[in-house]
C-alpha cells in the first residue's frame, strides 16, 4: 500500500499498533471492576470498566428501615457512582492509547533519571515519513528569551543631562 506520500506503510503499522492496544484495553476494561455506594451506604453497585452493571448489593437494614422506598433511588445513585469511577479511569487509559501517535509525532523520551533530552535525533528512515512537528528545542533554548529579534538601543552616546532643548522644553514642560 505505498502511495504518493511514501509513508503509508508506517501509517498502517501505526494503526495496527493502535488497534492492538485498543483491543487489549477493551479486554482489560471488561475484567476490571469499580464499585460505588449510595450516600447512605445502603446500596453498593459494581460495574465493569465498560460500565456494565455486574453486581448489586442491597443491605437488609435498608429494607427494614422506615423509608424503604429510597432503595430505588439508592440503586440509581450507587450505579452512577460506580460508573463515574469507571469512566474516569477508562478515559485516562483511552487517552494513553489514542493520543500517542508514535510514528507521526515522536515525543522525546526522558532518559533514566527523569531529565529531559537536550537534543532530538530523527529515527532511521524518518525522512520519508509524513510531515511532522519540528524537533523539540533543547530545554535551555526554550527558557532563554529570544534576543535576536529585539530591537536594542545603544545608550552609550546618549547625553541624558545635556541642555540641548528638545521637544519637551519647547512645549514648556520644564
Amino acid at each position, binding site marked *: 500500500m505505498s502511495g504518493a506520500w511514501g509513508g503509508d506503510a508506517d501509517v498502517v503499522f501505526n494503526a495496527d499498533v493502535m488497534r492492538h492496544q485498543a483491543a487489549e484495553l477493551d479486554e482489560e476494561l471488561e475484567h476490571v471492576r469499580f464499585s460505588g455506594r449510595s450516600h447512605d451506604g445502603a446500596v453498593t453497585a459494581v460495574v465493569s470498566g465498560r460500565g*456494565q*452493571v455486574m*453486581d*448489586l448489593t442491597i443491605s437488609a437494614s435498608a*429494607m427494614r428501615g422506615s423509608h424503604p*422506598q429510597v432503595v430505588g433511588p439508592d*440503586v440509581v445513585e450507587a450505579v452512577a457512582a460506580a460508573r463515574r469511577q469507571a469512566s474516569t479511569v477508562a478515559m485516562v487509559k483511552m487517552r494513553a492509547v489514542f493520543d500517542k501517535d508514535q510514528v507521526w509525532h515522536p515525543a522525546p523520551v526522558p532518559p533514566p533519571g527523569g531529565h529531559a533530552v537536550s537534543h532530538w535525533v530523527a529515527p532511521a528512515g524518518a525522512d520519508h515519513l509524513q510531515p511532522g512537528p519540528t524537533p523539540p528545542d533543547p530545554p535551555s533554548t526554550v527558557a532563554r528569551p529570544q534576543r535576536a529579534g529585539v530591537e536594542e538601543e545603544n545608550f552609550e552616546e546618549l547625553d541624558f543631562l545635556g541642555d540641548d532643548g528638545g521637544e519637551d522644553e519647547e512645549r514648556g514642560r520644564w
Partner: protein
Amino acid sequence: MTFEDDLYHLAREIDAATASVAQTARDAEQTPLHWRLPGELGSVTVSGAGELTALTLDVAEMHQYSAGALSRTLLQGIQHAEAQAGQRRTDTIAAAVTETGPA
C-alpha cells in the same frame, strides 16, 4: 458533468447521509425505555443510550423479597433494560444506515 462535479455531489450525499444517521442516533438516545420488573415489584427506566436513570419499587411488594433476592432481581432487571435499550439504539442506527446507503 465534470469529475469535480461528481466528487462534489458525492461529498454532499455523504454529508447528508452522515447527518441523517447522527440525527437518528440522537433521537434514539433521547427516547427512554421502561422495563417492568417481575410481578408488581416496579419498573426500571433507562435512557435511550442504555443508562439507568430511574428505579421505582412498590414497597409492599418489595417486602416479599429478602435483601439478596431483591438485589439479584434488580440486577437482572437493570441488565435486561440496558441491554434492550442498547440493542434498540443499534437497530435504529443500522436501519438508518441502510436507508441512507447506496441503492
